[in-house]
């Protein structure tokens, strides 16, 4: 009985594999298509006031326009650079988190403050950062840094503390020095947590850069959004938001690929 089933199933399932897209792609694509279609219909039947909101085809036309003029790339380059620098600086959270997770005394001394800063809506400090670091790039870089360091730091720390005791014991039994303990056990064990921290930080970094550019500045995606909204160009405004959305999805996917490379032992 079982054998018969197997012989029937094998070829059909292998056929499916060759022809069909994986469900993790096809399902969300269908959902998206339905949403876009209904949304578009609402627009076409004048259910949406173009002053208040917009619909896909209009947004698409706007996007095409600023892609063609190169306007969007100018803003993207500036915002990208600000995020890049700020994020690179925030990676200092990894070594700090490693140390705070490993040495109990460091954790005791600093953990309450790290938690406090992490939970504070630091975005509220933007005007102060502008005051300190000026209207130009630096204030945005610092905002990105301030918002993205804490999720990285806190997750790294959690990763260190989640290291299996038996592995630490094994390393100690085989004569690991403090440095070897970090290199062979603690750091690799924390990698998945570090990646999670980075993923959370990406979202916060994008918030930081957009808000800072909205409040002060004359270039960058945040500025472009504010500018469009001030001119009541709702379609253009939404087009920039879509660009941001696509960007953050791409970054997250990129990180997932990176994680597979970095932590091959986790593909089960």
């Amino acid at each position, binding site marked *: 009985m079982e054998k018969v089933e197997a012989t029937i199933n094998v070829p059909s399932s292998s056929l499916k594999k060759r022809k069909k897209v994986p469900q993790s792609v096809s399902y969300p694509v269908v959902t998206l298509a339905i949403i876009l279609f209904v949304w578009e219909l609402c627009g076409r039947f004048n259910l949406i006031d173009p002053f208040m909101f917009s619909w896909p085809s209009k947004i698409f036309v706007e996007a095409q326009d600023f892609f063609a003029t190169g306007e969007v790339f100018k803003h993207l380059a500036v915002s990208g650079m600000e995020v890049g620098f700020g994020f690179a600086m925030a990676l200092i959270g990894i070594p700090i988190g490693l140390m705070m997770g490993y040495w109990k005394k460091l954790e005791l001394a600093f953990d309450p403050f790290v938690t406090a800063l992490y939970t504070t809506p630091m975005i509220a400090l933007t005007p102060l950062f502008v005051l300190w670091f000026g209207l130009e790039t630096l204030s945005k870089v610092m905002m990105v840094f301030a918002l993205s360091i804490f999720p990285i730091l806190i997750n790294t720390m959690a990763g260190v503390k989640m290291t299996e005791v038996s592995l630490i014991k094994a390393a100690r039994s*085989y004569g690991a020095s403090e440095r070897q303990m970090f290199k062979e056990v603690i750091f690799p064990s924390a*990698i998945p947590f570090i990646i999670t921290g980075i993923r959370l930080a990406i979202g916060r970094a994008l918030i930081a850069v957009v808000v800072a550019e909205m409040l002060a500045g004359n270039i960058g995606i945040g500025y472009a959004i504010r500018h469009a909204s001030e001119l009541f160009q709702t379609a253009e405004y939404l087009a920039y938001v879509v660009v941001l959305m696509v960007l953050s999805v791409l970054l997250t996917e990129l990180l997932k690929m990176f994680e597979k490379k970095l932590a091959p*032992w986790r593909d089960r």
Partner: protein
Amino acid sequence: MMETVVKTKTPILQFDSLNVIYNEGEPNQVHALKNVSGEIHEGEFISIIGPSGCGKSTLLHTLDGLLKATSGTIFVNGSPVHGPDGDRAMVFQDFALMPWQTVYQNVAFGLRLAGKKESEIRDKVMHYIKMVGLDGFEQKYPHQLSGGMKQRVGIARGFAVEPKVLLMDEPFSAIDEQTREIMQEEVLKIMLNEKKTVVFITHSIDEAVFLSSRIFLMSVRPGQIVEEVKIDIPYPRTLETKSLPEYQEYKQVIWDHLKGEVRRQYRKGEA
């Protein structure tokens, strides 16, 4: 006869009135080991057996140097032990393999930590991977292996540092019954080939009698070695050994000793 020969030499591992007290001086103080002494000679296979919670693992961890004894001394070939070092290597109950390292890297673990040369590491690692029958699996990760294979990696890792004494902490308790019997036989074969001294923790009487040349029986807490039983069944032993009448007798003797301890523990309400 063998006894008179080895007794004249310095024991390879000697421990003298070891006491381990957890949380000393606090209300939750636990006297885990009490005046535990023993001598282990080169080439012996010693099993330590006792009711659960008697401090077997504590004793093994203390012998390795992972735990510091509250009092008492440990000597390897006559020189005192101050912490973990290359003279003793541990095989862990839960394997304790690094999930991010391949079989090769795991077996090389101790050698790498000791800063050995790459070529030397390679030779030794390949030798011991072959010894445990894992050649061809060098580049696999632990999660791709079965429990029995994982512990082979653990055993190879222990051998690779070429310790004087191999300490095994219930190495087969997380492995299924059938695989365990095969592993026991293989471990014996390897021990005889490599002429290793082993201290082995188990709660299985069968396993202890099958593997050991001598068995230390421990009492309930505070753990003490209350009895030593010499197993006079010649090596090499195979699975057929288990059907010998003297094998069954030894099992009975050990069980008679152990029964009293388990009952005592039961009355204390800890079993």
